[in-house]
């Protein structure tokens, strides 16, 4: 880690333009951004502000129409589809609003999925999955199916899966959107904890209370950065309650 640049993500004049009928819609209209290693960002904005496009782009699911996006010093604007897949596999972890676990796989198999695609051998993958499950408090649910778990537990599985390949950046898209407040708070505690351990986290949310957990609040409007606020991370009550809230 020490040899790498402190800037994980750099955006320079990034545009993303969609063609709708005979009209060009600029989902992103010239965004400049630098995200430093170990920071915790919250991106918010009204619908149509371009925050989803931003997340897709940062997640290497899409390429900019114009401008330059580099992830870990690698410019993604001219990469092939396979190279984008590899970048996601090596450097990124996704957490979604609706958890997006694969229903026919067990908790452990879901967590191992990135390792499976990396070609890590089965015994090592199992070892790592068990360690990560322990870290997010799921050691006793490894053999269960996602459908047998509560929403909060499913989101923990998703976080464990996103962490299993030890990514540079954890991308979370409305991670608490499908959870009740108490469970959502517990998930946010977990993310904060991960951030404290040095993970770079980028989160998209429309809830100010959730955004308040982050270090940096970025608000988007009409495809542009409207405001950028640095704040001291909001710390809630002691972490000890969070596990009970989950159960």
């Amino acid at each position, binding site marked *: 880690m020490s040899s790498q640049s402190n800037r994980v993500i750099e955006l320079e004049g990034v545009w993303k333009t969609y063609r709708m009928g005979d009209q060009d819609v600029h989902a992103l209209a010239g965004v400049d951004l630098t995200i430093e290693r170990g920071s915790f960002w919250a991106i918010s904005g009204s619908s149509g502000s371009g925050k989803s496009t931003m997340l*897709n782009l940062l*997640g290497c*699911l*899409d390429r900019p129409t114009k401008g330059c996006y580099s992830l870990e010093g690698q410019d993604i604007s001219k990469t092939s*589809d*396979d190279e984008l*897949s*590899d*970048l*996601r*596999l*090596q450097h*990124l972890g*996704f957490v*979604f609003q609706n958890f*997006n*676990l*694969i*229903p*026919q*796989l067990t908790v452990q198999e879901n967590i191992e*999925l*990135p390792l*499976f*695609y*990396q*070609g890590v*051998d*089965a015994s090592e993958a199992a070892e790592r999955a068990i360690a990560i499950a322990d870290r997010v408090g799921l050691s006793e649910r490894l053999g269960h199916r996602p459908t047998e778990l509560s929403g909060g537990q499913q989101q923990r599985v998703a976080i464990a*899966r996103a962490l299993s*390949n030890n990514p540079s950046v954890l991308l979370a898209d409305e991670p608490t959107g499908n959870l009740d407040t108490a469970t959502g708070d517990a998930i946010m505690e977990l993310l904060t904890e991960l951030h404290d351990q040095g993970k770079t986290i980028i989160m998209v949310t429309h809830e100010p209370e959730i955004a308040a957990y982050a270090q940096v609040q970025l608000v988007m409007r009409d495809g542009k950065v409207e405001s950028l606020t640095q704040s001291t991370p909001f710390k809630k009550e002691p972490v000890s309650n969070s596990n009970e809230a989950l159960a």
Partner: protein
Amino acid sequence: MISSRFFRNIQLGIKTLLLHKMRSILTMLGMVFGVGAVIAMLAVGEGASKEAIDQISRLGSQNIIINSQEPIEQATSGSNRIRMNIYGLLYDDMARIESSFSTVVRTVPAKLIRGEGRIGSRTAELRLVGTTPDWFELVSRELLAGRVILQRDMEQSANVVVLTEHGARKLLAGRTAVGSQVRINKGFYKVIGIIKSESTQSGSMQTPDQQIDAYIPLKVAKERFGDITVTRGNGSNSREMIELHQLIVQVDDIANVEATAAGIERVLSMYHPKGDYRTSVPLALLRQAEATQRTFNIVLGSIAGISLLIGGIGIMNIMLASVTERTREIGIRRAIGARRNQIIGQFLIETVVLSVTGGFIGIGIGLLIPWLITIVADMPTVVTMWSVLLSVAISIGIGVIFGMYPAMRAANLDPIVALRHE
């Protein structure tokens, strides 16, 4: 590492298919019946052809059979009340054939006379065959008792007869018939042997031997019956003069049969301008049977092929539905970092697992059906190794071919769109 991923993909594929057991089973049915049909049809076809070919080879694939035949124009002109109809093969023909062709191993003549055998009060309809010892070399059948006609019987004009098993049973129960005297028409003959008969008919051709045969030395037949046969009709007698009714020519090698047959035809046509003979070549019949079999196989194969095609389309249909249903899963896998080829691999493996499983069940059915046919309908069936191997290859091939399109469709989904799919 790659192979372990491959096995885990297979494992995952089986697991996914087991999630929808009913659907997987229904999808497989097309393959099951397709493969079952291929093997069963080929087994029935193969069995039928084996039987036909066995029958024909019993006629002797190295043989050329020449029969006397009443010429057509003489049969229609009948002004004379007493008329002699002279036609057919001559003793000279036999000599000509034997001296003209180096490929001819032996020539067996036969005089065929209808008769009635009688021992005591028992009677049996018989076909007297006046022939030479060579007959028993050519039409080799199991000797059940006694001996066959030998050269010395010819020289001595011995009044001996060899009966078939069937004839012996009719005239006298069992093998004790050897040594007893049988009266045939007006003469007495000593039974010297009993022989098995394997009379079968194949198309227009009949084996040289029949169940009702009674073999006597040719010389005896000539002396006792002469060459003239009188048939009593209503008001008039028709008389025929035939020296030999049949000549069976054995050729040294199957490869020479057709050329020799053509040569014999040429020689005979010089001496028999009336065309009072007919040559038949069992080998040609065999060839014909094989050609028929090929056609039969192609037809059966096409039907089975169509059912396999339909089975394949069924699988493709379900896989396309499955891709739509699992769009989100595909999106998740792509977001995590799966390459397009890995998605293709996953879906392809699923299709192949489905089609190969169906294929194996189909092989089971394909083995069971011929077995049942043989038991119930008493039809011969032969399951060949290659039909089973072919079915395995076809089921893998169908999995790959019909799995490719759904798999490509899955892999080409835009991950962003796929993730948003409900």
